[in-house]
């Protein structure tokens, strides 16, 4: 069991007297990683504005959402999974399967709406299957979703190994549609969809029983079971949700590139996990916010933007910096949780 380093609160009075101290010193240890990421983001943004002439233009910031819409949607699903203490390695492969299938079906003349519903269902189904294997056979999430990764990627390559262009009018229309936000600032529908996903997910986590059960399972799954919470159902639902998000990400991908390709989204699962961790979602489960994952995605996106602005830097720097940040944030999480205990 967890031991606290607060002095043993023997009576109600001493327990009550602890409260003011905790309030003034550490508002909430759970917020520290998110706040740190927010500070980092602000520093990077400020640094960008100071160094590059056009960095301060609103379009630079707005484009972060457009360029990282897929990653954002996938990270939302990943956040749920990681909060339960699990991991989902299959999301990148589900994206490639979704884009390939979408492109193939659209080229085959299927109605766009049917294709959309079908691929979203398929993604959810793959997720639900993984969740069921994890729950009923007590398989480690790492292994179960690794199997899902191979399966989905294999299926995608089986359908078609090369890039398939999408000529469907609806897809092209959505791809070319621009939403004016302000003077000279426009964004794409996919960015709004990603933001909507973040908002809905945040509300679900904070205000629904399902959301709270996700936290409870991550905190202590055995306790959650003894408290009568639907652990199995919630766990399967979380992987289903992650599968759905991955499929949605795949759809966004196919819209953005008006093509489908079986090698699309390779390694994206790792980018999503990295974004979650940088955003303060604890890999051990039980703690984290969708808002944090959003910040994590923005941080990685901003690194890329800065490198583009610099112009003469090797793009590999993005990965190097993300690697360094990951180390830093994992160590920080460790310190924060250790102090909380």
């Amino acid at each position, binding site marked *: 069991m967890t031991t*606290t380093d607060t002095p*043993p609160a*023997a009576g109600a009075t001493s*327990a009550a007297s602890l409260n003011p101290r905790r309030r003034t010193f550490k508002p*909430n240890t759970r917020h520290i990683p998110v706040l740190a990421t927010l500070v980092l983001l602000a520093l990077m943004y400020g640094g960008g504005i100071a160094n590059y002439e056009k960095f301060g233009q609103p379009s630079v910031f707005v484009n972060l959402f457009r360029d990282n819409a897929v990653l954002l949607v996938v990270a939302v699903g990943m956040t749920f999974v990681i909060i339960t203490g699990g991991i989902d390695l299959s999301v990148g492969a589900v994206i490639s399967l979704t884009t390939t299938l979408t492109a193939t079906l659209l080229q085959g003349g299927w109605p766009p709406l049917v294709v959309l519903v079908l691929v979203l269902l398929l993604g959810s189904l793959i997720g639900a299957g993984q969740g069921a294997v994890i729950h009923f056979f007590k398989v480690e999430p790492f292994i179960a979703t690794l199997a899902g990764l191979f399966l989905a990627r294999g299926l995608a390559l089986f359908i078609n190994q090369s890039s398939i262009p999408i000529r469907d009018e609806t897809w092209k229309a959505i791809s070319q549609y621009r939403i004016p936000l302000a003077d000279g600032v426009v964004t794409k529908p996919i960015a709004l969809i990603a933001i909507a996903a973040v908002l809905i997910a945040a509300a679900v986590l904070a205000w629904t029983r399902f959301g709270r059960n996700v936290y409870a399972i991550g*905190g*202590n799954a055995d306790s959650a079971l003894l*408290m009568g919470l639907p652990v199995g159902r919630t766990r399967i639902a979380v992987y289903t949700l992650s599968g759905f998000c991955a499929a949605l990400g795949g759809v966004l991908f196919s819209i953005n590139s008006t093509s489908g390709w079986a090698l699309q989204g390779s390694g994206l699962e790792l980018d999503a996990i990295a974004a979650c961790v940088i955003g303060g979602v604890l890999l051990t489960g039980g703690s984290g916010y969708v808002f944090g994952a959003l910040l994590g995605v923005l941080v990685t996106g901003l690194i890329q933007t800065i490198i583009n602005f610099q112009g003469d830097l090797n793009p590999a720097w993005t990965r190097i910096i993300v690697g360094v940040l990951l180390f830093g944030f994992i160590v920080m999480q460790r310190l924060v949780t250790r102090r*909380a205990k």
Partner: protein
Amino acid sequence: MAEQSPVLEMTGIRKVFPGVVALDGVDFRLYPGEIHALMGENGAGKSTLIKVLTGVYDIDGGDITLAGAPVRINGPLQAQQAGISTVYQEVNLCTNLSVAENIFIGREPRRFGRIQWGLMRRRAAELLARLDLDLDVSAPLSTYSLAIQQMVAIARAVDISARVLILDEPTSSLDTSEVAQLFAVMRRLKDEGVAILFVSHFLDQIYEVSDRLTVLRNGQLIGEYRTAALPQVQLVEKMIGKELAVLSDVEDEAQSSREKAAEASPVIEARGLGRSGAIAPFDLTIHAGEVVGLAGLLGSGRTELARLLFGADRADQGELSIDGRPVTLRSPQLAMKKGIAFSSENRRTEGIIGDLSVRENIILALQASRGWTRPIPRRRQDEIVEKYIKALQIRPADPERPVRNLSGGNQQKVLLARWLITEPRLLIIDEPTRGIDVGAKAEIQKLVAELSGGGMAVLFVSAELEEVLRLSHKIEVLRDRRLVEELENTDGVDADRIMQTIASGATS
């Protein structure tokens, strides 16, 4: 109370596990507004009965009626819905969630599917106030002590269903004032008409708080009594049956070996041995065949002293000699080579490896001392293990069973066996009898007496003075990380005398 009808009635409950009848026709009644203690040794069937009540186990026979209506309990959730809530020894809450959430999770007040946090916090605060607890309900549970967490668990249980509350060893990790607070909460709930089933190893607590008690032994019902009408000695007799005689045997054995020990040669001798911050320099001599008891309060330096003698911590001053030759114990391995064995106080975290079998756990230390290049042949292993399972009466006597499925007392015996097969000359045992029942305690004490009779030197660490007095030839009293007095255990020495020393620290 006799006029009332029981809220819970279990008749002829039978539960069979492969090879064992865990419950054999047990009756149990629980009235509203009473605290009812369930008594019995480890393995008597208490846990099984509780698991039947909470729906973890299905029964093989018998009837359960709740408030007059027959019920069949199929799972923890269903037990809750039927009005039976349980609080376990290990707090089963999620410490990452807030106090209020821990009370209400799964039952949060909602409006259009949205959790009403404000209402939830208010109701949590009201509920806790009813139990005289003033907590910050929006703080994570992890910021509070184990005792408070336990009360939060009780608050949750009570709020879910106020009919039957099962408290399974809730006091085992609480200190005295925390226990008092828990009892206050229990009495308050009892006054509200809640029926409470209480399990504890501490007889004093049973007598302080319970109204009636039911005794089980070997899966059978021994009887149901009014606590006030049953003297403690009789209760113990009913719990352990005829084995009570063992305890007086132990004392005789200890007496007879006492004379022998005096003339034996010293096995280990410490002169001014100490470690700053852990234990002040002390002198200590232990002879072959001698039992030396370490007495003192929790945190007085008992374990620290023992760890120095085993090399688990390094002494930074003083000298140590074994068989008259000076040694520096740099590591436990070296100590083991010199014939010193140390059985740790935390059998769960430092001793027993739950997933390994009884055989593997017993063979562990011997194998380690031989090195992995010279594995012990399987046939030899089986011989050794069988011998010790028999000698220490480890139950169930199945060498291939994972240790985690054994009761606390039997795990302790496995741990002892592990060190005994290395044939140590000095055996250090730290709190071997903590958290185990009276019968197993007596067996372990008897074993210690026999070992010293056979010439082994024993350093016996225990928080229970009675036990130290019964076994030891010599008692070292510790206070504030200092060895304050050495007492020969003669007839003039009793618990009062030792407590006086612990309390005053003065050498009289």
